[in-house]
């Protein structure tokens, strides 16, 4: 993808690229750390139909929403070469057994041999969570392991 970086003197930087649908899409990073999401107009490619101001937190949430499905796909791609190992994601529904418990309490590695490589929460990715990471309802847990390990993990994390 050919991302064009244009300095905007006195304001910040514009980074955008052409998408297949024939629009420019991109982000303006203001000097003061604010972001703006821009989408160009179809009739006039010089103009923008939308420029949406985002706070840093909103921008990172949006980035996570767009980026986290790719994370799992990316991990799967990487582990394809390692025979017998795959990646899966499991949701922690609100009120589930481990909702509010630290990661260590699942004893997932000990019990199933599979490991948690990341947790996706509210659109942002927490890679390599530490044992004291506390799960919350709505989290998406990304687990790597053998087929047996993953099904055991599914039972452990999903089961009451």
């Amino acid at each position, binding site marked *: 993808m050919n991302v064009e970086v244009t300095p*905007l*003197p006195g304001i910040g930087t*514009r980074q955008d690229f052409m998408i297949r649908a024939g629009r420019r899409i991109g982000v303006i990073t203001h000097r003061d750390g604010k972001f703006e999401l*821009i989408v160009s107009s179809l009739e006039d490619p010089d*103009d*923008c139909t939308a*420029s949406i101001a985002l706070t840093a937190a909103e921008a990172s949430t949006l980035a996570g929403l767009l980026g986290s499905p790719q994370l799992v796909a990316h991990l799967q791609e990487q582990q394809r070469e390692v025979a017998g190992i795959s990646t899966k994601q499991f949701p922690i529904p609100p009120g589930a057994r481990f909702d509010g418990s630290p990661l260590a309490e699942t004893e997932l590695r000990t019990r199933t041999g599979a490991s948690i490589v990341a947790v996706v929460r509210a659109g942002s990715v927490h890679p390599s969570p530490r044992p004291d990471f506390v799960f919350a309802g709505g989290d998406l847990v990304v687990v790597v392991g053998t087929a047996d390990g993953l099904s055991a993990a599914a039972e452990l994390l999903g089961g009451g």
Partner: protein
Amino acid sequence: MHSTAIALIQLGAVFFGLGLLGKMAWRVGISPIPLYLIGGLAFGQGGLVPLHGIEDFTHLSSEIGVILLLLLLGLEYSAAELMTGLKRSWTAGLVDIVLNATPGVIAALILGWGPVGALAMGGVTYISSSGIIAKVLGDLGRLGNRETPVVLSVLVFEDLAMAVYLPILTAVLAGVSFLGGLSAVGISLAAITVVLVIALKFGRYVSAVVDSPDPEVFLLKVLGAALLVAGVASQLQVSAAVGAFLLGIAISGSTAENATRMLEPLRDLFAAMFFVVFGLNTDPASIPPVLGLAVALAAVTTVTKVATGWWAARRQGIGRMGRARAGAALVARGEFSIVIASLTVASGAVDGELAALATAYVLLMAVLGPVAARVVEPLAKKFTRKRGTAPATA
């Protein structure tokens, strides 16, 4: 005690009134500068409500307002941005100077203000208001547009042009001879070169002098440095504003960004005071005689700025509508035109009528600029539809 109380009440009323004016202005989408000027006209000589006992304070505040306006203009673009701007957009910058300074120069010569008045009026009609333009582009959601970098690079060039222009103007106003004027040009070119080199190579040292992790210390140091440099420059007959401007350029990087954030509210406060005082010192009765000329000047320089933006955008391969937007965005004149007029009038070298003309001109252009930026699209669409057969690109 009693006079203090009255002074506080007057000041409070002035600031509160300006706040209400500012709120009104942005609500209808124009810059508050013309309303501040009108506010000043209303308070001043022959105005509605004369102020007493706070002249010392308002005078000093307006001086600080000019210093902060130019310090922040210097801070706005980093030395690196100025250099790339110079390399990339000098042709557009020259077209800008020729097209937009000429009407002011001609007007001044017709009025018989001589070469000094011509130099000043050329500056008044040339310099766009980067403050109004940046705000309007942001409000209209045009920061992501392709023509916006073109608009900004023209503003960057104007910023550099000011660095050369202001020292020359102040030297000429101080009444130096032609030869002296030439040496002033030489000195100012040397000064801006030295400051740019310092900013590019040793900017971190300048920044380190004023930088501090503690916001309070930082604010005091930046403001202190600006007033010190401005005061020394003023003592050397280079004008306080120029000194502050060059200091702003020399401060760079994150220090410049922090300083901008910190000083912006202060600038807005003191700059408002500056516009009021400028209005105060202008006799409202002197405006009507020059109004016709101001309207003519406004009409001509609107066309010339639109032409500048159109030409610059076209060179970058921007479509017709984008060219029109770029041109209209550049129309606004404001704070710096008033700064130039105020330096000129304060020196006494040019007829006081210049203040009246500049006031009337800025009153028109600060309103017209944001309006032009807003209506250009519907207008241009109507125009192209009427022509119908016109080719999509030219």
